[in-house]
């Protein structure tokens, strides 16, 4: 797929900034409708020669060119991310597909209660929409991503329609831990996933390489999005990669376009009737703050002062059990063999509000096993043999609530074009720490009950900032939020935000599906306000 070339002057209907999960869904929603749509992406297509390296090499590339830590991979498309004052390291990918390139495919919905934490728990703010209002868009998102899953999960309301694809096998570790949960009387359920257990429409099934966080060598989990881009491009959407937005332009309270630097460094203005920001929880506030003017000195769409505030990252813990026998761990889907939401909802007797989502994961390949073990010399073989392929890992994602001291601000460090990077200031909230403590203890019980001979816990994990949310949050009150229920900013008509920065609260599950659903919802509104020229 080749990128389009920029004419000297441009005037389009819709600009989409960012080709990640949100931009992919927005492009799919507005393609083929006779509109002139331009998507601008800072990165490029992920290097297929890297992707096609042997799977063993992915264990090494994940520490370098395919690292989700921008300060490690130092790719030309990246902007600096200073996380020296953050309890967690933000993990990102700039390129077509966005951070989905490093996604293990987890595609759960938020819970109904996640949208009403002020009403139910007296904390933060309610979303201006309900689960039921978002449900039709969840269905669109699941259809786009061809999500695999099993209906009937008692931790969710009954679904209106089934999953597009059947669930993935729970495999050895899932079956073992599920049996323990049945004994304990605890919840478990096969995870809903954008990985697929069977081939369809030219998309092959997951081959269980278990290298998801370092980019799948076969583009599984991202295939549906890739196919979607092919359709969007066929439907007339232009995609231009390798550019850098310098600012979003607005006049008299209405968006009028963007300015960007092309690959050669030439500044190019593009006029647009609508601009959709889909640059992620760091990139979107960065662009709004970079777009400050004398009329909006604190940044565009920032009359509330909340752009860049309230960052949520889903504090994370790892609890790993090792078993006396082979569990085929390295032949298991990286994430979501099974999930557990026994402690997702609030029970105030526990000393905190909200809860956690658990995902049972494999414990990785041999390089990861050896290096994380850290036992060398005469004891190495025994240590390695006792852990390789014998582990089951609960990844514990905790609910995160907005704290306005957790921020994304512009930093003095600049990218290759001289544009500012971001500084992330994030301290794990006390409530989240209590959730972690409680759930780590339960997860240790879970794995011991399953027969693990050794259990190791690591909490909170620092390099776990996959989910960057809440930095341009949604709400009804313009003094307490940045965008309205349609995803349009309160301050600037025609300017939409449809990525995870619009989350009012974080819930405890992977945000990819909700991001996709919000993009479809925003597109629905945008299209109603925008007739083709």
């Amino acid at each position, binding site marked *: 797929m080749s990128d389009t070339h920029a004419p000297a002057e441009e005037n389009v209907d819709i600009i989409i900034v960012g080709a990640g999960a949100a931009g992919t869904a927005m492009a799919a929603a507005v393609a083929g409708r006779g509109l002139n749509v331009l998507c601008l992406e800072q990165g490029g297509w992920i290097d297929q020669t890297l992707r096609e390296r042997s799977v063993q*090499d992915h264990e090494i590339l994940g520490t370098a060119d395919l690292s989700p830590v921008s300060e490690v991979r130092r790719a030309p498309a990246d902007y600096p991310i200073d996380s020296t004052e953050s309890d967690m390291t933000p993990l990102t990918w700039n390129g077509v597909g966005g951070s989905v390139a490093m996604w293990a495919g987890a595609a759960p919905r938020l819970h109904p209660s996640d949208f*009403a934490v002020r009403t139910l728990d007296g904390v933060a703010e309610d979303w201006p929409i309900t689960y039921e209002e978002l449900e039709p868009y969840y269905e669109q998102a699941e259809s786009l991503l061809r999500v695999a899953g099993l209906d009937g999960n008692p931790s969710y309301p009954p679904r209106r329609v089934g999953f597009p694809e059947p669930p993935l096998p729970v495999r050895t570790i899932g*079956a073992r831990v599920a049996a323990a949960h*049945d004994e304990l009387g605890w919840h478990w359920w096969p995870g809903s996933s954008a990985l697929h257990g069977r081939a369809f429409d030219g998309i092959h099934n997951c081959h*269980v390489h278990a290298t998801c966080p370092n980019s799948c060598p076969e583009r599984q989990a991202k295939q549906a999005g890739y196919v979607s881009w092919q359709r969007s491009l066929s439907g007339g959407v232009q995609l231009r990669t390798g550019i850098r937005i310098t600012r979003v332009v607005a006049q008299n309270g209405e968006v009028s376009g963007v300015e960007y630097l092309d690959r050669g460094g030439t500044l190019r203005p593009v006029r647009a009737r609508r601009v959709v920001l889909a640059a992620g929880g760091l990139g979107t506030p960065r662009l709004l703050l970079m777009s400050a003017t004398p009329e909006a000195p604190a940044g565009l769409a920032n009359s509330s002062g909340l752009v860049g505030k309230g960052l949520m990252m889903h504090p994370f813990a790892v609890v790993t059990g090792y078993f006396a026998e082979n569990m085929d761990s390295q032949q298991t889907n990286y994430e979501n063999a099974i999930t557990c939401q026994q402690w997702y909802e609030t029970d105030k007797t526990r000393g905190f509000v909200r809860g956690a989502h658990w995902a049972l994961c494999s414990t990785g390949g041999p390089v990861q096993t050896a290096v994380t073990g850290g036992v060398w010399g005469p004891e190495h073989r025994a240590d390695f043999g006792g852990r390789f392929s014998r582990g089951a890992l609960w990844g514990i994602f905790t609910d995160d609530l907005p704290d306005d001291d957790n921020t994304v601000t512009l930093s003095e460090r600049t990218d290759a074009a001289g544009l500012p990077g971001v500084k992330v200031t994030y301290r794990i909230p006390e409530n989240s720490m209590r959730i972690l403590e409680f759930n780590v203890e339960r997860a240790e019980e879970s794995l011991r009950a399953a027969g693990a001979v050794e259990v190791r816990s690591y909490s909170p994990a620092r390099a776990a900032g996959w989910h960057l949310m809440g930095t341009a949050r949604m709400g009804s009150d313009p003094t307490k939020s940045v965008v309205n229920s349609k995803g349009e900013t309160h301050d600037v008509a025609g300017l939409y935000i449809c990525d995870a920065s619009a989350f009012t609260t974080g819930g405890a599950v992977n945000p990819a599906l909700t991001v996709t659903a919000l993009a479809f919802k925003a597109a629905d509104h945008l299209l109603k306000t925008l007739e083709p020229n």
Partner: protein
Amino acid sequence: MDTSQVRVANLLRRKLIPDSPSMPEIEDDEFGRDVERVLELRPDLETTVARQLAADDISSHDGIPAELVFVVAAAYYTNPRVDGALGYSAGQRRTAPLDEHSTAELRQRLSSVIARGPLYVPTP
């Protein structure tokens, strides 16, 4: 790498990951190529590791720099014969049967979870 660096790399390998009769025997030259492959993927480590391999001081594995430990371990465990002996063979395409029978079996296995009833809190 020159022959001296290959020799030191192999000494390190045997110190960190002692030979085992149940694992393939790796020739020194073969392992040298494995190390070079890792450094091709991690060019950021090349200068540091080359200098460390030239130092020839590996008397204590506690004192071996972390980046050198990583390179040696990665080179060994991504060697195709080691990988094959472990049964990892991540290049293999594994599939699992996925049909109506497996889904029905899974639903049957979940019967006790379903029987315990709803866990979610509905929209207020």
